[in-house]
Each structure stands twice: as C-alpha cells, then as structure tokens.
C-alpha cells in the first residue's frame, strides 16, 4: 500500500508502459482478430477446417516461445534486424499481438458461430444483404467478442517470458509490471513483488469494468437487454 502512496515515478512509468503495450497489442489484435474470426465463421473455402485447427492451437502458443521466435526475427542477424526494434516497446507490442491475435480470432469464431443461425435468418428476412447480415451477427455477438478481447488483454498484460526476451526489462524503457515482478523476486524483495502483482490484478479488473461498460455501446441494431 505504501508503494502506491509513495508516488514513485518509476512505478507509474512501469504501470503506464504495461497498459500501453498490452492495450495496444490487444486493440490491434482485436481489430485484426474479429474480422478474421468472422470470416472463418461465415465463409467456406478449401483448407478452412485446417486453418481453424491452427488458430485453436495458436491460442495456446507458449509466450516464451513466441518471445524467442520474435527475438530471432528482430535480432541484428535476423531478417528484420535492420529495423532495430529489439529491446524496444515496439517489439513488445509485436510479440503480444502475435499471442493475442489467435485468441481473439478463435473466440470470435466461436462467439459468432453460436449466434449465426438465428440472427442471420432474422436479418435476411428483414431484407439485409449478405454483408449486412454478417455485420448484424457480429454486432449481436458483441458481448462474447468483448469477452474475447478481455481474455486477450488478460493474456497480454500477464505474460512475462515474451516481453522479457524481446524487451530486455530495461529500466525506464522496457520494464513492465510482470518483468518488474521477476526482478524484485529475483532480488528477494517479495513484498514489492506482491504489491506489484496486486496492482496488476487491480488494473486488469479496472480495464475489465471499462470494457464491460463500453462493449454494449459498440454496435448492434437488434434490441437486447444488457
């Protein structure tokens, strides 16, 4: 408690960076994952079943493995080394996006499939085009999609292996809450580590609440009780 009250600027920087990195990765993951999931749900094409299985598998991609792979890609010797992105927040956003995108895609796919039949038939009966029907289904699934984005954010803000590898846990620059917890734990300062952990949980709760308020306003044209 005294940690928060102490208004330590380093603590605020760490919290801020955690939110920005994981938030950006989650939003970008959602912007890419929701259409991807919807497409997988609505359209038939060769290899669709295989692709769906791949998406489900990638939902369980071990973060530290993703971190290692992105590290190798961004490394000076790697294909994207020229971009000099290693040990920067940008690299952290990239790796968290990779972790989060399959999660949003997979969960959107499931959410939308559930609602598809009823909503689609209703929309088409009301005179919608195919695209309008698609959007209607997505809109009506927004609560489940919101939950998917929250799951994605939860995954992103809680992971440590990937951001440790590609970010380097550099003070003031790439240190986030999870990597700070590792550092404090390693140095034996358990009380600080636990305090950081509690702040992390409180943060996740706050974001959850915020998204919960916002999601119903994000779309949907058919009437529904919140």
């Amino acid at each position, binding site marked *: 408690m005294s940690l928060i009250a102490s208004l330590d600027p380093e603590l605020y920087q760490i919290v801020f960076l955690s939110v*920005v990195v994981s*938030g*950006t990765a989650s939003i970008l993951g959602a912007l890419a994952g929701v259409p991807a999931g919807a497409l997988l749900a609505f359209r038939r094409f060769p290899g669709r079943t295989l692709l769906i299985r791949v998406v489900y598998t990638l939902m369980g991609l071990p973060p530290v493995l993703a971190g290692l792979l992105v590290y190798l890609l961004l490394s000076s010797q790697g294909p994207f080394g020229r971009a000099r992105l290693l040990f920067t927040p940008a690299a952290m956003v990239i790796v968290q996006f990779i972790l989060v995108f399959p999660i949003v895609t997979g969960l959107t796919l499931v959410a939308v499939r559930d609602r598809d039949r009823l909503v689609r038939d209703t929309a088409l009966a009301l005179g919608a085009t195919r695209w309008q029907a698609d959007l209607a289904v997505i809109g009506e699934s927004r609560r489940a999609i919101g939950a998917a984005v929250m799951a994605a954010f939860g995954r992103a803000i809680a992971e440590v292996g990937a951001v440790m590898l590609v970010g380097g846990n550099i003070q003031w620059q790439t240190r986030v809450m999870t990597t700070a917890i590792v550092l404090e734990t390693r140095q034996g300062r358990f009380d600080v580590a636990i305090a950081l952990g509690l702040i992390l949980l409180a943060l996740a709760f706050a974001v959850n609440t915020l998204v919960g308020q916002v999601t119903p306003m994000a779309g949907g044209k058919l009437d529904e009780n919140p």
Partner: protein
Amino acid sequence: MTRGMRNHVWVWVAVGLVVVAAVGFISYQSYARPGKNLTLATTTSTQDSGLLDVLIPAFEKASGIKVKVVAVGTGQSIEIARRGDADVVLVHARKLEDQFVADGQGINRRDVMYNDFVVVGPPGDPAGIKGMKDAAAAFAKIAQAKASFVSRGDKSGTNVKENEVWAAAQVKPAGSWYLSAGAGMDEALRLASEKGAYTLSDRATYLATKDKYKLDIVVEGDKILYNPYGVIAVNPKVHPNVNYRGAMAFINFITGPEGRKIIGDFGRDRFGQPLFTPWPQGQ
C-alpha cells in the same frame, strides 16, 4: 435508436484515437537515434549489486549517450553480443570472454574490476569445512560427506566458477545431495538456506541478503575464488551496425579515473566495505 447509434460512433472514434495515440507513443519510445544509444549486455548479478545504478548515470552524464542495460544470465548476455544485438558486454566469466574474443566477435577486452566468491553454508557445518583456506579441498570434503550443495546450474559466472572449483577438486558432483537449480543468485541462496545446504555465492549478493538467510561464510580468500570482470566491445567488422565509438567511450570511462573511483567507493556506505576492487592499473 438515435442515441444508440451516436454512442456507437463515439466509441469507435475513441478507440481509434486511443490506438493512434498509443502507436505514436510506442513508436516515439522505440526510435533510436544512431550513435546516441548504447546497448550494454551484462549479467543479473552485476545489475543486482547495484553498481550499474551509479555507474551508468555517471557515464550517461559524461558522454551524452543513453545506455540500455540488458541484464540477463551470462550465457545469454554473450549470445546477445554474438548476434550483434548489444554494443558492449560486461561479464565475469573469463573462459567465455576469452572464447568470445578468440572467435573474433569481441575486441579491446579490458579488465575492469574484481570481487570475490565465498562458500557459504548452514550454521551447523555438516561437512566440517569452516575456516578452510583451500576451496577445492573444501568442495572435495562436501562431496565426500554428501552434504547438500546448491548449484545455480545456469551457466552464469557463478556457475562457471563453481565448476572450476569442482574441476580443481577433481570431483564430478552428482547425486541427490547436489541440487542443480537453474536459478539466480538470490534464489540459490534462498534454496540453500531452506535446505541447510552449501553453495557458492558472490560476496555482494551474500552481504546484501545475509539477514534473510541462515547461511555463514565458511571459505573465503582463496585465489581461485576471485571473480574478475571484463568489458569487451562487439567487433564492428563482424557487426557493422554496432555503436563501436559508444562502446569504446564506455570502456574508457569505466577503466578510467572517474569510473575507477565510482567502482572503488561502491558499497562502502551500505556494507562498510566496497563490494568491488578496480583492476590494478598497468596489469
């Protein structure tokens, strides 16, 4: 219906603004002005000693170069340097350093400072080695008595030194008494304390944590326990994108008068004794 649609649009506008702001912030933070940034790969125990918290800001002030300190295990540190992802490396594993230079990956290696390792153990001293002056002989006694011993098992500088002492004792440690933890120094000390085991620790971490754990120093002062630190620039001929000038500026700073003073004073106020000894000049 109209109110619902208005909310609808505003939410998306807000999300869009947030994303743009966030991406802008991230991009700004991630942009590195060439020449003004130096990436230093070092070890967790160097970072944990706190020396860098004093040394780095002093260097940044004197040189105007912003330093990114990436502190990972020794093996990973050198691997990062081998890939050209760091400009300069500061570690304490002479064999690995020499290999790094011999492979042409590193140049201008300089000795910076040294501290020492101590063998610590439970107050009961089951292997009866307290006060021994010969570390290798002490290790041999531990193996003989099958007294619990915690190894960091992570190719860290400490781990490398530990293996050196086992080799000098001509013992290959194995058995249920030998606990290879894959852990950092503080974790290893905690494990040793909990299990009443011996372990090898750098003096700095031991001093910094001694009040938390039930471990006493049992062997110290043997030359084999000296822990020298070396700083090496990553070879620009192999990795043309490294900040070689920055690396040399750093090397010159920490081996020069200002760096040596900082190193020689560090730890005095907290422990009553400095944690490191700057490398004697002219050697």
